[in-house]
C-alpha cells in the first residue's frame, strides 16, 4: 500500500462527512497496518511513521487534528507493554487489535462530549458558533432533543463558507439558525449568551488551534465578558506550544498545495487556522470531562512525561 493508495483511501474516508479527518487518518493507518507486508517490527513502525507523514501532507484542512490523531494512534499501538513478544505476527496481531480498540474508543468520543456538553446550553439561550464543527453540531442536537429552546448564530466563515454547511446541518435538527458575516461577530455578540467553538487541535497550554476567525471571536467574547466554550475530542490534544500566531508552524497554517507551490508568497496568503490562547477560553468540554485550560496541560504532561 503505497503513498498514492494511502492518500486515496484517506480522501475517500474524508468524503463521508460524519467522521472527523483525524478519525479518517486513524482508519487509514489501521488499514495500512493490516495491508503492510514488512517482516520486522522496526520496519513496520518506520513505514507507519512514513504513512503518517504522508497523511499529514495530504491536502486537507484539519491537519492539526490529523497529525495529533495519528501521533496518538502510533503511540497507542506501539506501547512497550504489547511489543515484547518475539513472534512478529503475534506482535502485529496485538497491534492491530489495539488499533481497533483505539479506533472504537475514538469513535465514542463525540457522543461522550455531547452528553457532557448539552447542559451548558440554557433554555432560551442565544448562541454564537464559528464555522463548521461536528462536535458542536452534535452537542446542539443533543440539547434540542432535551427540550432546550435556543437560537444559533453561525459565522459564514470565509474562505470556504463552512458556516452554511453548519447551518444546513442544524436546520436538519430543526434548530433556528441565522448565518452572519464573520465581520458581524462583534455586532451580534452583544445579545449573545455564550460562544461555542470546536477545535482542530488543543495545544499544551490549553489554547486551541481552530478555523481562522476563532481568535478574534475569542477576543470579542472576552471584551464583552461572554463565556467561550470549546468542544474537542481528546485525540485532538497536540504536542504543540505556540506562543502567538506567528509561532504557529506553517504546515498547520497553510494548505500543502500552497506550501509546496514555490511561486506563492506566504505573506500574501491567508492562513486557514489561527491560535486562540487559553486566557480567552472559559472551559474545554472533552470526552475526558469538562476541563479548565490548565487541566489540559495536566493531561498532556501525564501523557508524555
Amino acid at each position, binding site marked *: 500500500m503505497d503513498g498514492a493508495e494511502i492518500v486515496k483511501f484517506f480522501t475517500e474516508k474524508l468524503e463521508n462527512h460524519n467522521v472527523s479527518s483525524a478519525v479518517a487518518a486513524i482508519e487509514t493507518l489501521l488499514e495500512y497496518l493490516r495491508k503492510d507486508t514488512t517482516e520486522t517490527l522496526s520496519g513496520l513502525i518506520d513505514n507507519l511513521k512514513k504513512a503518517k507523514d504522508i497523511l499529514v501532507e495530504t491536502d486537507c484542512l484539519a491537519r492539526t487534528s490529523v497529525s495529533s490523531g495519528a501521533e496518538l494512534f502510533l503511540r497507542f499501538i506501539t506501547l512497550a507493554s504489547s511489543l515484547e513478544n518475539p513472534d512478529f505476527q503475534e506482535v502485529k496481531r496485538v497491534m492491530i487489535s489495539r488499533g481497533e*480498540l483505539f479506533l472504537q474508543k475514538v469513535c465514542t468520543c463525540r457522543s461522550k462530549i455531547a452528553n457532557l456538553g448539552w*447542559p451548558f446550553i440554557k*433554555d432560551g439561550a442565544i448562541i454564537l458558533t464559528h464555522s463548521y464543527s461536528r462536535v458542536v453540531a452534535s452537542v446542539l442536537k443533543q440539547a434540542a432533543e432535551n427540550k432546550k429552546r435556543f437560537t444559533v448564530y453561525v459565522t459564514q466563515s470565509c474562505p470556504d463558507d463552512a458556516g452554511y454547511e453548519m447551518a444546513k446541518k442544524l436546520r436538519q435538527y430543526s434548530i433556528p439558525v441565522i448565518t452572519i458575516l464573520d465581520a458581524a461577530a462583534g455586532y451580534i455578540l452583544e445579545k449573545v449568551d*455564550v460562544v461555542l467553538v470546536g477545535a482542530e487541535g488543543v495545544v499544551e497550554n490549553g489554547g486551541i488551534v481552530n478555523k481562522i476567525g476563532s481568535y478574534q471571536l475569542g477576543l470579542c467574547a472576552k471584551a464583552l465578558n461572554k463565556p467561550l466554550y470549546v468542544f474537542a475530542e481528546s485525540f485532538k490534544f497536540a504536542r504543540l506550544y505556540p506562543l502567538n500566531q506567528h509561532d504557529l508552524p506553517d504546515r498547520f497554517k497553510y494548505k500543502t498545495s500552497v506550501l509546496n507551490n514555490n511561486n506563492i508568497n506566504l505573506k500574501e496568503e491567508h492562513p486557514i487556522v489561527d491560535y486562540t490562547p487559553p486566557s480567552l477560553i472559559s472551559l474545554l468540554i472533552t470526552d475526558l470531562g*469538562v476541563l*479548565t485550560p*490548565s487541566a489540559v496541560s495536566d*493531561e498532556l504532561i*501525564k*501523557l508524555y512525561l
Partner: protein
Amino acid sequence: MTSQTRDNDVTDKMEQFLLDLKQEQFNGSYDLAYKTINHLRKLISQTRWTHAQELMNTIKKEGKKMITAQPSEYVVGNMVRRVLKIIREEYVRLLGESEESANKESLHKMLTAEGNERDDHTKPLKELKTTVIEAVNEYIDEMEASIHNISAQAIEHIHSNEVILTLGKSRTVEAFLKQAAKKRKFHVIVVEGSPLYHGHELAKSLASKGIETTVITDTAIFAIMSRVNKVIIGTHSVLANGGLKAVNGAHMVALAASHHAVPLIVLGAMFKLCLLHYSDIGGSEATFNRLASPQEVLDYYDGGTEELVNVQIYSPTFDYVPPELVTLFISNIGGNAPSYMYRLLSELYHPDDHVL
C-alpha cells in the same frame, strides 16, 4: 427480624432527614455535611449488603433522594460522592490493587488501557464494611478539623495594620480573623449583608474579641473598597471551574475588589468543592440559587398592599462569583489558585460518580 427493624429505623431517619433538608432545618453547610455523612454512615452500617456494588447502589439511590430534596445544597451531593469514592478505594485496596486504577479518566489511561477490564465491584469482601466505616470516620475527623486547619494559616495571610473587608457571617472567616488577631493588630470592615444582616452578628463577636471592627452597609462597599488591603470571604461551595457559590452580595464585593485591584481570598473547607459548573446547573439559576421569602426585603405589611400587588420582590440567597475574580482559595489543605480546582476535585471524587 432485627435487621428488618433496623432497616425501618433507617428509613424513618431518612424521611426525617429529607424533611429537614426540604425545610432547611440545618445551620450552615458544615452542619449539613456532617448530618449527611452521619446519615450515610448509618446506611453503610445498618443496611444489609453483600458486596460493594450493592452498597454503592443503595447509597446512590438514597443520595439522589437527598440531593433532589435540597438541590441548592451541593454539600449533600459532595458527601455522597465522597463516600462512594471511599468505598471504591477501600474495595480496591482490599483487592491489593494500586490506587491508580480508581483514579480519574485521562488520556494516558486511555492509551495504557488494556481493553475494558473495569471491575464491577461485585466480589464480596467481609472486612469491607469495617474498613469503609473506619475510612468514613477518618474523613469525618478531617472535616471536624477543617476549620481549625484553615484558621491556622491565618498568620501567613494577614499582616499588621491591614484593613480587611468581609461579608456576612461565615464561621470559618470568624475563626480565621480571631486566630490572626491573637498575633496581629488589624482593622476589619464588615459588610452587613442584606437582607439577612448576619454581618452584624459577626461584627459583634469580632469586636468582643477586641478587633477594630466597622460595620458598613452593602451600598458602601464600592466607596470603602479603595482603602481595603484584602477581602476575605467565606463561601457556600466552590464550583468545578473555581467559581464560587457564595452568599448574596459576594459578586458585588468581588467586582469592587477587582476594580480596585484588591486581592479576594476565599476560605472554605475541602468538602465544599463540588463537581458542578455554573451553567450546567439545571440549565439556569433554577437550582443554583434559592429565592427566600420577600419578607426580609420588604415587609408583608407593606409588600402585600393593593398597589404593590404586581410588584415582584426577589431575595436571592446566593451569588455566583466567576473564577477570574477570585485570587486565592484557602482550604484545610492549604492555599490554591482557583484554576487548580479541577485537580483537587479529581482527587476527591471518582469520575463514575459524577452522575449518580
